[in-house]
């Protein structure tokens, strides 16, 4: 094992010193993941709309008014639902981006808040990773809430009626005498103000321009404090990708595996053409140790690159790690598979040109058929059938299975078995051909 580790360490050092080779192993896959992720939008909801489940409770007029205002936002695709649990379920399954739960337990009188009654409460349930949508939605909900208030405030006759009701209810309100007097004065002054506004409106009924001006000033008038919006984290439990990056990162991983396999398959033939393979064979180690060292280096490079890609995807692009243990199994199986393919490709030709050319041809076909270029979820059925012959498909499936397909360990068995079998067969064939050539 010591000799294999020595060989692997040497190969990894050589890889690190080869900046161009390193780009194909680590840089290119990331570029692919980001490029495809950006092309396909980076969000499963699409760029055009955000699907929102809406639950309204309490004062019907208030609920409908708020819903009407919220619906004016073209970016929102709102579906009213009847229960909070149902809305939460839809968000958890990823069918909706968020839910908005609007509760107005007041009697609908906008001045009732002065009597200490609760303002409407708004609860937004959204996956914590959807930071951009969360901020955007907060703005839209705030806007709808204030537009609703503005609408109520600019209805002068309605407001005076509400004020009158509120003044008469003051006598029975649960508050001390001083507060009752102060609030009575405030509401009385407000009623006086509104009566003057009403007279001015009557005097200038034809002058719509002055009406606009008054609306503008009312828009700036906000004596009621902020909205009462509560955000609730609703982590999705879904068998759908949360964003396109959850599709493109498994794809990028395939390119990382291909990059590693291509680099190390060339390193074997390079050792032969540059004579160092002979020196390795003259060392007191067996052939399987030499090849094992190569395989170990390739395997280690795959693991490191895949881990870096997954961590970048997770921390920067919100790609879930899903079931980390299954993900680890998927990564190990994929790496092993590509080590075997590397061994096979390395003996296809006797020169670097032959191995490089044939290797990339094989890898490209595998990638095309297996979902390395076109995401598996977007493939037509006939292409999926062809893709079953490509290890790339099984690797994508295993990684996606762990990340977002919700695979159970039993579901993971098939892709992992296929990947390991391909790896083993590749390793055995490669070793046999190499041994034959050494004679």
């Amino acid at each position, binding site marked *: 094992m010591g000799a294999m580790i*020595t060989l692997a360490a*040497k190969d990894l050092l050589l890889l690190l*010193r080869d900046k161009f080779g390193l780009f194909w192993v680590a840089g290119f896959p990331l570029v692919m993941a980001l490029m495809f992720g950006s092309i396909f939008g980076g969000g499963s909801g699409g760029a055009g709309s955000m699907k929102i489940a809406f639950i309204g409770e309490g004062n019907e007029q208030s609920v409908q008014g708020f819903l009407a205002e919220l619906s004016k936002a073209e970016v929102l695709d709102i579906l009213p639902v009847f229960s909070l649990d149902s809305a939460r379920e839809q968000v958890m399954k990823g069918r909706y981006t968020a839910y908005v739960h609007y509760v107005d337990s007041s009697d609908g009188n906008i001045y009732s808040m002065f009597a200490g009654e609760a303002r409407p409460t708004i609860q937004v349930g959204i996956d914590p990773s959807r930071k951009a949508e969360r901020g955007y939605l907060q703005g839209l909900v705030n806007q709808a809430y204030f537009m609703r208030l503005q609408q109520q405030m600019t209805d002068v006759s309605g407001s005076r009626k509400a004020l009158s009701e509120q003044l008469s209810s003051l006598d029975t309100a649960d508050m001390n005498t001083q507060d009752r007097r102060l609030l009575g004065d405030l509401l009385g002054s407000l009623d006086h103000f509104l009566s003057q506004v009403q007279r001015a409106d009557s005097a200038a009924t034809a002058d719509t321009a002055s009406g606009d001006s008054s609306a503008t000033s009312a828009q700036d008038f906000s004596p009621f404090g902020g909205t009462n919006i509560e955000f609730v984290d609703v982590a999705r439990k879904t068998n759908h990708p949360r964003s396109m990056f959850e599709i493109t990162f498994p794809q990028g991983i395939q390119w990382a595996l291909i990059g590693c396999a291509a680099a190390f398959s060339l390193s074997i033939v390079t050792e032969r053409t*540059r004579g160092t393979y*002979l*020196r390795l064979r*003259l*060392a*007191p180690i067996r052939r399987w140790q030499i090849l094992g060292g190569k395989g170990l280096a390739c395997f280690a490079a795959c693991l490191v690159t895949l881990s870096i890609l997954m961590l970048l995807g997770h921390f920067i692009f919100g790609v879930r790690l899903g079931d980390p243990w299954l993900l680890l199994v998927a990564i190990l199986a994929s790496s092993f598979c590509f080590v075997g393919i590397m061994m096979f490709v390395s003996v296809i030709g006797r020169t670097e040109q032959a191995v490089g050319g044939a290797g990339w041809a094989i890898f490209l076909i595998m990638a095309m058929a297996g979902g390395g270029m076109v995401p598996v979820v977007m493939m037509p059925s006939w292409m999926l059938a062809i893709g079953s012959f490509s290890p790339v498909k099984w690797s994508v499936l295993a990684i996606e299975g762990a990340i977002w397909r919700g695979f159970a360990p039993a579901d993971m068995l098939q892709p992992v078995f296929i990947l390991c079998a391909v790896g083993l067969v590749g390793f055995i064939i490669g070793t046999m051909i190499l041994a034959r050539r050494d004679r």
Partner: protein
Amino acid sequence: MISVRELKKTFGNITAVDRISFEIAKGEVFGLLGPNGAGKTTTIMMLVGALRPDSGSVAIDGQPDPTRPDVRRRIGTTPQALAIYEELTAEENIRFFGKLFGLSGSRLKERTEFVLDLVGLTDRRKSKAAEYSGGMKRRLNMACSMVHDPSILLFDEPTVGVDPQSRNLIFDKIEELKVDSRTIIYTTHYMEEAQRLCNRVAIVDHGRILDIGTVDDLIGHHGGKSVITGILVEPPSRETNLPGTLTDQTQWRLESDHPIEDVARLTNDGLKFTSLKIDRPDLESVFLNLTGRRLRD
């Protein structure tokens, strides 16, 4: 002790090595001298177990399987082609091969220092091999095969493409190793190298050994006579008994088994020379006489 018996190897229709046999004693420097394609490298590769012979056998210190790790630890092979990692430094190359041969810790450090010093690369130990001259790469190639302190050293044409300075340095180092009583097998197509370094030489051509012996024995048996050429100060008188042939009255040539004695006798007889040259037979003449061709044809 190394014993090679009836070793044969063919590649398709070409017989690279044809029933070669020889023995090498411990501490001996044994040369395989022959032109390119004579079968020297193939013989070496079978000797160290890198190639499987079609027939025949090899035994190293009585051990018939040279691929055994314990046998390989006793052998250091410097391949004809450079076998170093150009992207690694000299020190990294040497340490890597040292580790493969089981060295570690202070022993590895000590041996790395020793071979770097031996091949004169201590000052450039941190430079990548890619930045070395051809001669320096050759020396590093040698160092990598000696790091594990082998008792048997095989040098397969170690001076090919090397500048004269590096070549002399390589000769000096091999002569130092001779003193250290290591067994050395040295293949070359430069007869001067074999003549300078080897105790015994096998003349190889077309996969067969034509003869084996010490340099003096080979020359004695196959080298032919020494050739004396000279220009006389004046044409010799009719009475002078001058052996050999005379052209243009003063240009003289003589083939002799005892050139010094012959020249001394003639000068005592009063013959005077403007210039005199004695060409003694060498391994080149041995090869020429054995094959009818020159080594570098």
